[in-house]
């Protein structure tokens, strides 16, 4: 797997990160063939990782794919033979405007949430590099707690906060602040404000991950480069924009990629809020919609496959870019 060691005379000098130098094209020395036994070694090391992936991920994926071309419901699960129906599940789903509504909502929800999470996360990470030790530790502990609390516990608290009858948010708005309209106001009954509440909760729970990864990456930015830039008269914003940001970009790309994946198939938060009394049909996102189809496994399988394709489309760009940087 490792690239062949570069001959010392062609090793590039340490590049100034401020200036993107063109890499001179150079002939790649022909790779010497190793005996097959030692070539096999690294691959053998992959086996322990590949087996669980194939069993845990590959099998369900293949099964889901096969199911999506069958008619497979509860009766089939209890022994009735499953019928092959070709693409019918897909055409049924994709010809339904409601499904496209769900897809559109999910993509919008995903992009808004991932964007907000990244923006708030990076801001907090930068803040953490600037503040004193006491403030930083407080921030870190707070973030860790927000991250470490089990999802359902967090959701219960949020649900209580936004409860229409006894919730503290409504009380705060209507009693001390005098906005009478918010007495008994239901936050989740309108899809728009439902998604607002969901966004607050999802962002709240995913920001800490972004903060910690970004903060760790920021610590890797060499202090001497920053100092040099400062001596050259670069402002704080310029130092961040042109020095730190390019250096931590790979980390940001991965964090962003993960956010997109997580937020596209968000389930728990939406499901719990729906159970709390939101109109179910109008608030479905992909995750909860697939779950609602679960009694008809074949249809749910087809929808999950569509969801996989959407995820790949959304993240393909990221992954390509990441792999390209890997090859530099």
């Amino acid at each position, binding site marked *: 797997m490792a690239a062949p060691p570069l001959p010392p005379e062609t090793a590039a000098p340490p590049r100034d990160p401020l200036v993107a130098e063109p890499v001179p094209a150079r002939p790649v020395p022909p790779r010497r063939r190793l005996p097959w036994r030692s070539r096999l070694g690294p691959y053998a090391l992959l086996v322990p990782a590949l087996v669980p992936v194939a069993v845990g991920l590959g099998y369900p994926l293949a099964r889901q794919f096969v199911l999506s071309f069958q008619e497979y419901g*509860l009766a089939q699960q209890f022994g009735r033979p499953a019928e092959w129906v070709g693409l019918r599940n897909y055409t049924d789903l994709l010809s339904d405007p409601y499904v496209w509504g769900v897809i559109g909502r999910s993509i919008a929800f995903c992009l808004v949430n991932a964007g907000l999470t990244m923006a708030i996360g990076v801001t907090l990470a930068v803040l953490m590099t600037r503040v004193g030790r006491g403030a930083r530790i407080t921030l870190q502990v707070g973030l860790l707690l927000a991250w470490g609390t089990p999802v359902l516990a967090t959701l219960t608290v949020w649900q209580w906060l936004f409860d229409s*009858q006894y919730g503290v948010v409504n009380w705060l708005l209507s009693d001390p602040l005098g906005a009478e309209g918010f007495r008994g106001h239901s936050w989740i009954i309108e899809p728009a404000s439902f998604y607002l509440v969901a966004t607050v909760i999802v962002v709240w729970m995913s920001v800490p991950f972004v903060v910690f990864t970004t903060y760790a990456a920021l610590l890797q930015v060499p202090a001497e480069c920053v100092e040099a830039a400062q001596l050259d008269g670069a402002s704080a914003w310029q130092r961040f924009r042109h020095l730190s940001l390019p250096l931590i970009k790979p*980390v940001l790309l991965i964090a962003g990629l993960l956010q997109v*994946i997580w937020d596209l198939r968000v389930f728990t938060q939406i499901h719990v809020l*729906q159970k709390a009394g939101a109109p179910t*049909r109008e608030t479905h996102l992909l995750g909860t919609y697939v779950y609602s189809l679960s*009694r008809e496994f074949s249809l749910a399988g087809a929808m999950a496959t569509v969801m996989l394709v959407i995820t790949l489309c959304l993240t393909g760009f990221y992954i390509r870019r990441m792999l390209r940087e890997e090859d530099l």
Partner: protein
Amino acid sequence: MRRVRTGGLAAAAVASLLAVSACGGGEAAEASSDTEVRLWLNGTDTPQELRDYLKETFEADHEGMTLVIEEQDWSGLVPRLQTALSSEDQTPDLVEIGNTQSPTFTYAGAFTELTDVYEDLGGDDLLPGFVDAGTADGTLYAVPYYSGARAVFYRKDLFQQAGVAVPTTLEEFRTAAIALQQANPSPDFSGFWFPGQDWYNGVAWVFSNGGDLAVQEGDRWVGALSSPESQEALAEVQDLFTNATRAPRDADSNEPWVAFNNGQAAMFSAPTWARSSIALPECDKGVDPDDTSPEAEALLAEQQACNEEITGVFPLPGEQPGSSAPVFAGGSNIAIPTMSQRQEEARDLLRIIFSEEYQTMLAENGLIPGNSQYADALGDDVYAQAALAAARNAKLTPAAEQWADVEGARILEDFFQQVASGADVAQAAAEADRLMEETLN
């Protein structure tokens, strides 16, 4: 930076793996040993005393076998049954299932035929609506376990203050609820606690008016919320939502006694066993729930008496004076999964459940037993009377194969919420009918 990148990629891979495996967690397969019979009961409706009785009686009859009773949560029950019942290793040997969920599984072939023991278990004395829910294509697969009818609980003192009498018709009920709310202008007060998603109670008006949720025409199910009868009833329901309640539109029928206990509602409707959940602040003796001394128990009894002094109960009245409305019957069926390897033992257990002793115990605990012959043991206090009156006229949801899907998709919760939010009833009903037809056919 290369190290950071590959590290990140690995992290991404690991994280997604973890996320995927987290979804699959949950039920660990329980190895059922050779001498074990497993019974699944849902929620806490079956009291401990009854569970002990089952265990003792069954184990006395079956030397060397143990009965394991596992309590399942009502919410999420259908997907859990879906996985458990189709696996020989995981299936319980006898299972309780909500009456409205029953058809989905009977049609799928999940249960063993019970026609041969029908007479043994009680024959025509078994609650008929529940037997229908347990029958698929003329074959019996599930039998009624118990039923809990709904009745209306009310505050006697608030009725007096508002000068309202116990209503004897559905029309009077509505005017009483509105009058009660007007008599108590607090912005949190409801004349009748009627949250927006509470279709369990709302449907009583539809049934009472001669309407229905869905009806079978030939081999097709047709949504019936748009019928003139249903529409008339739904207009009354909307009036109640608008003028007789300040319950949140985003709440459902769970724990309706909370507002009542807070003095924020004059009436609520719930299964009659809700009497034990009533705890008015006026009566609170501040007993530590863990305290089991005789003094504490005396105080608790006093507290309960005080609660029942202030609280009254009546069956929801029907169209005619003196009649009771066809309320929605909650309750459950019980069945033997096809995959169970203990068919004989499960049948024996079923016979114990339908024995006179056990049925009587169910009734003594305020549940209407599956065999109506033993309903007398409910007693003759006001609660038992209200329960019986309500149960006699109770009605079930349509016995359609896919009915559980309608509930799973929460079509009726959404619909009643729209009615509560002041939507155009005809339009909302047309849409709900369309969704129900799509699901049922």
